[in-house]
């Protein structure tokens, strides 16, 4: 299956990379090099080809290369079913990052209509045991990969909610002002809720019959912290918000709505909640979900998404690693994978491109080992 592929990537003054150029084809890319050489930074740059703050959730300023800190730029050519596109994203003088698609200024949301980028990074190892916010973000990224307009709904909802929370904090009691904001939260919130439900159903279908020891299936469900059923539609959500005003005034923030939902996962074969699974099992569940998401996208759009797998290989034994590589090849996904040593990718042989990253006096150097 023809996948999406970043066929060229250049980084300028981005984190440890002063000036890096990488050419690629549709094959997976194995990136190896010592700790601190700049491998994750390379994946972070790729993650900025999708809407949002990237896989570290960093600010534009944090990504500017030190010590010069003059701003940064990432440029990429993306091949895919809709033909090639030139994407550039950059930040200058600490300003928010900007995006251009084919030399025309574009929104971040527009990136989601050109390519999908999914990632798995070590910071997500604690996803199932830490707060709900990380799981909601994981879920919403999944929804955005299927429905790019989900990003707009989330932004609208959050903006209207920040306004409402400010009214609550200021103890304002203007019912018309609340109603105006709640109407917008309700419309966007209902869209968020239904998008999440559709995506969970889609992931469930993609997992059907696909669960293996390496990539176990997970049953996913949305839950509410107070066990309330989700409002059926925008009207019901608007009512719930209006009814909650008094309680929200006391709390100084909004206590009802999709921003409170949690994602629950159960290791399907064992019936055990993800948070009670072993470290290795939790990681396997995540990997399996990312692969299901990729499989579903490949079926729906005809192109497998770009995968960024940071230090995934190191945590798998040789058999599981081979199974992962086989799955990626079967998907036809351009997976950018990192590890400290080349041997982690030896089984891929010429079926992957190999990039070596090293550090030279504080600057990352990227070398393509074979074409």
């Amino acid at each position, binding site marked *: 299956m023809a996948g999406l592929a970043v066929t060229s990537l250049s980084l300028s003054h981005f984190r440890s990379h002063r000036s890096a150029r990488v050419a690629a084809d549709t094959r997976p890319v194995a990136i190896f090099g010592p700790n601190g050489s700049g491998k994750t930074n390379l994946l972070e740059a790729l993650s900025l080809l999708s809407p949002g703050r990237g896989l570290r959730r960093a600010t534009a300023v944090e990504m500017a290369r030190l010590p010069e800190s003059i701003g940064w730029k990432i440029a990429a050519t993306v091949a895919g079913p809709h033909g090639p596109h030139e994407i550039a994203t950059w930040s200058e003088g600490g300003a928010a990052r900007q995006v251009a698609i084919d030399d025309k200024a574009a929104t971040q949301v527009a990136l989601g209509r050109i390519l999908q980028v999914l990632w798995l990074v070590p910071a997500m190892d604690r996803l199932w045991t830490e707060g709900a916010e990380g799981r909601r973000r994981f879920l919403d990224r999944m929804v955005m990969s299927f429905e790019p307009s989900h990003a707009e709904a989330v932004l609208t909802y959050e903006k*209207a909610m920040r306004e409402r929370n*400010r009214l609550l904090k200021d103890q304002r009691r*203007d019912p018309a002002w609340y109603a105006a904001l709640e109407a*917008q939260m309700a419309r966007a919130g209902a869209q968020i809720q239904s998008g999440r439900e559709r995506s969970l159903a889609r992931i469930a279908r993609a997992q059907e019959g696909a669960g293996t020891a390496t990539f176990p299936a997970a049953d996913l469900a949305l839950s509410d912290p107070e066990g309330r059923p989700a409002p059926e539609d925008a009207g019901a959500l608007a009512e719930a918000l209006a009814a909650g005003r008094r309680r929200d005034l006391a709390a100084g923030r909004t206590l009802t709505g999709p921003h409170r939902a949690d994602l629950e996962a159960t290791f399907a074969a064992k019936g055990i909640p993800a948070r009670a699974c072993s470290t290795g099992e939790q990681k396997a569940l995540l990997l399996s979900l990312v692969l299901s998401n990729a499989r579903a996208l490949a079926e729906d759009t005809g192109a497998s998404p770009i995968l960024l797998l940071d230090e995934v290989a190191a945590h798998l034994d040789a058999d599981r690693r081979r199974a992962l590589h086989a799955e990626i090849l079967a998907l036809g996904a351009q997976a950018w994978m990192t590890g400290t040593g080349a041997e982690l990718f030896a089984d891929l042989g010429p079926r992957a491109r190999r990039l070596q990253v090293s550090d030279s006096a504080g600057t990352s150097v990227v070398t393509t080992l074979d074409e």
Partner: protein
Amino acid sequence: MTQGSPEIERLIELMARLPGLGPRSARRAVLQLIRKRGALLVPLAEAMQAVAATAQECVNCGNIGTDSLCGICGNAARATGELCIVEDVADLWAMERAHVFKGRYHVLGGTLSALDSVGPEELRIPRLVERIREESISEVILALNATIDGLTTAHYIAEQIEPLGIRVTSLAQGVPIGGELDYLDEGTITAALRARRAL
């Protein structure tokens, strides 16, 4: 560089602060003004002085004119019973450029935003309710931008005037989300006004 003429440098620096002009285009504009001293520079200076002395907000609608009551509020022919609500004077002028709307305006001077401490009082909304009674308004047309704050404000105003029992409509939005009225061409504004719909 204009080498040693602080007066000209000052003029360039001021011009460069205008919207649409940068340091380079300001330099070019100033050069042109000086070359056309009699035809451009002197009349411009006089026109600016006159406006500086007289420009003011209309006490009734918030439009900017040179009298306490603007030309639109002072013109009895524009008392059609239709009142168009805009965020900004620039939006009012954009509507006027299209020559389609025959009624009067109410300029809010912004949008509701709790985060920016802009409430109904800051937006002349109480005055709006008074005007609807005083000027026997029969239809209020909301011509606010399709941003989140613009939509919130439209919703709020609709709620405020609903008890008055008059028609409340909104410009049909062939307008992109966040697209500002001031940036639309006259044809789009005309079409949006003709196809206005009840809220």
